[in-house]
Structure formats: structure tokens, C-alpha cells
């Protein structure tokens, strides 16, 4: 049954992606991107990647719609008309796409138990993380304890980015106050 759902959802995603790329109204395109994020979140849930689906819905459908609308309110709602002669762009896109598809040929099949990712440390996490960390959720104990320094680094990067944005915005506001 989930295979049929997969196929229907992927067809909807393709239809939506083609429609978005042909839209000239950026406001409509921003809203359609929200639907696209919901569809990909469902696909992630079907693939059992619930945490990824969570992030996709929060960031893709929630925050980036708001951010795109904020950008549109500062700029314009209509797309600039592109020049007709796009043969070079089409060539670049085709080469990049075929390179990406070629890259996926070497990847193990979905759910393959012999995939490298299941051979390394996953068994230990599954068997031991409960007694070693005392946390029932394996993903949480990996993120917060086994890879604690990694997570600390990520949080530092995000914090730095946030401080940078706040400093930039504060600079603009201060200049407006002086004038």
C-alpha cells in the first residue's frame, strides 16, 4: 500500500515542481513551495525518517514560507522576464542532473542490511545505547552524547550565524535612527 502512496505522492511532487518552475508570480510560487515541503515531509515519514520529516515541515513549510514572504514584501512579487535563449543553461542543468543520477548508481538499495552505514557502529548504538546512556531514544543518545562535540559545534555555528544577522540588522536600524 505504501508503494502506491509513494508513487502518487511523487507524481504530485513532479506536477507541482513543473508548475512552480513555470510560474511568474513569486507569491504563488512561495506558497506552492510550502505544499512541496509538505509532500516531501510525507515521503520522509513513509521512509521512516521521522526526524527529517519534522525538520522539513518546520523549516520548509513553516519558516521558509514566512522568510520568502518577508523577502517578497521588501522586493517585488513578479519575476523578471528571462531571455529566451537558454540553451547553455539547459546544457548545464542536463550535465549536472546526469552526474547526480550517475552518482546514485553506486549507492546501496534502500533498506539494504549490507549498506556501509549499517556495518559500522549502528549495531553498538542499537544494542548498548540504552544501558550506556539510559535514554530510550537511540537518535537522542547518539546526537546528545556519542556525538556531543559534533552537536556542540553545530550549535556554535548556528549561534554565530544568528549573532551575525542580529548585528547586521541592528546596524541598519541604528543608521535609520541617526538620520
Amino acid at each position: 500500500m505504501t508503494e502506491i502512496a509513494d508513487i502518487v505522492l511523487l507524481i504530485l511532487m513532479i506536477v507541482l515542481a513543473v508548475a512552480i518552475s513555470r510560474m511568474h508570480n513569486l507569491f504563488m510560487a512561495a506558497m506552492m513551495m510550502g505544499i512541496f515541503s509538505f509532500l516531501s515531509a510525507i515521503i520522509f515519514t513513509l521512509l521512516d525518517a521521522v526526524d527529517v520529516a519534522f525538520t522539513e515541515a518546520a523549516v520548509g513549510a513553516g519558516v521558509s514560507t514566512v522568510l520568502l514572504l518577508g523577502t517578497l514584501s521588501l522586493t517585488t512579487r513578479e519575476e523578471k522576464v528571462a531571455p529566451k535563449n537558454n540553451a547553455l543553461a539547459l546544457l548545464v542543468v542536463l550535465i549536472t542532473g546526469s552526474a547526480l543520477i550517475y552518482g546514485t548508481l553506486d549507492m546501496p538499495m534502500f533498506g539494504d542490511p549490507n549498506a556501509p552505514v549499517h556495518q559500522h557502529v549502528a549495531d553498538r548504538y542499537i544494542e548498548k545505547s540504552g544501558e550506556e546512556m539510559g535514554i530510550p531514544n537511540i537518535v537522542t543518545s547518539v546526537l546528545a552524547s556519542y556525538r556531543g562535540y559534533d552537536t556542540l559545534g553545530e550549535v556554535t555555528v548556528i549561534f554565530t550565524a544568528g549573532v551575525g544577522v542580529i548585528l547586521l540588522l541592528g546596524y541598519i536600524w541604528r543608521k535609520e535612527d541617526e538620520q
Partner: protein
Amino acid sequence: MFIAAMIGILVTMALALCRALLGPTVYDRILSVNMFGTKTVLFIAVLEFLTGRPDFLDLALIYVLINFIGTLAVLKFVRYNDLGAEPEE
């Protein structure tokens, strides 16, 4: 039973998508995007009961909240063309 519900939700999703792409006015599209979010929540809930693991229902609840915030932002943008606008008296 759950499979029938799932098929029904998928058909509704396709119809909502048609309305979002064809919809003559902005409000048709806003309503269809909002409805699509609701269908996502329903689909995830049905999927979880179908696979026998209703542990992730809180995920569906978070989706409802996100969808609400997104709809608020879209409506504010349509009404005032500015997300930071003060509401009218």
C-alpha cells in the same frame, strides 16, 4: 479501513493541488495550501495507525501548528504587503 482512508486522503490531496494550481483568486490558493497542510496531518495519522505505530501523533500536532503560522503569515502578507505591519484599528 485505514487503506480506504489513505486512498481518500490521497485523492483529496490531488484535488487540493489542482485548486492550488488553477485557482483563479489568491484566496482559493491560500485555502488550498492550508487544506493541503491539514491533509498532510491526516495522512501521517492514518499512516501511523496503518503501520501500527501511533507514537508519532505529536509530529502531526506540530504540523498543525506550523500550518497555522504559515497561513497567518500568508494572510498578513496579502492584506498589508508587509509582515511587520501593525493591525488596523
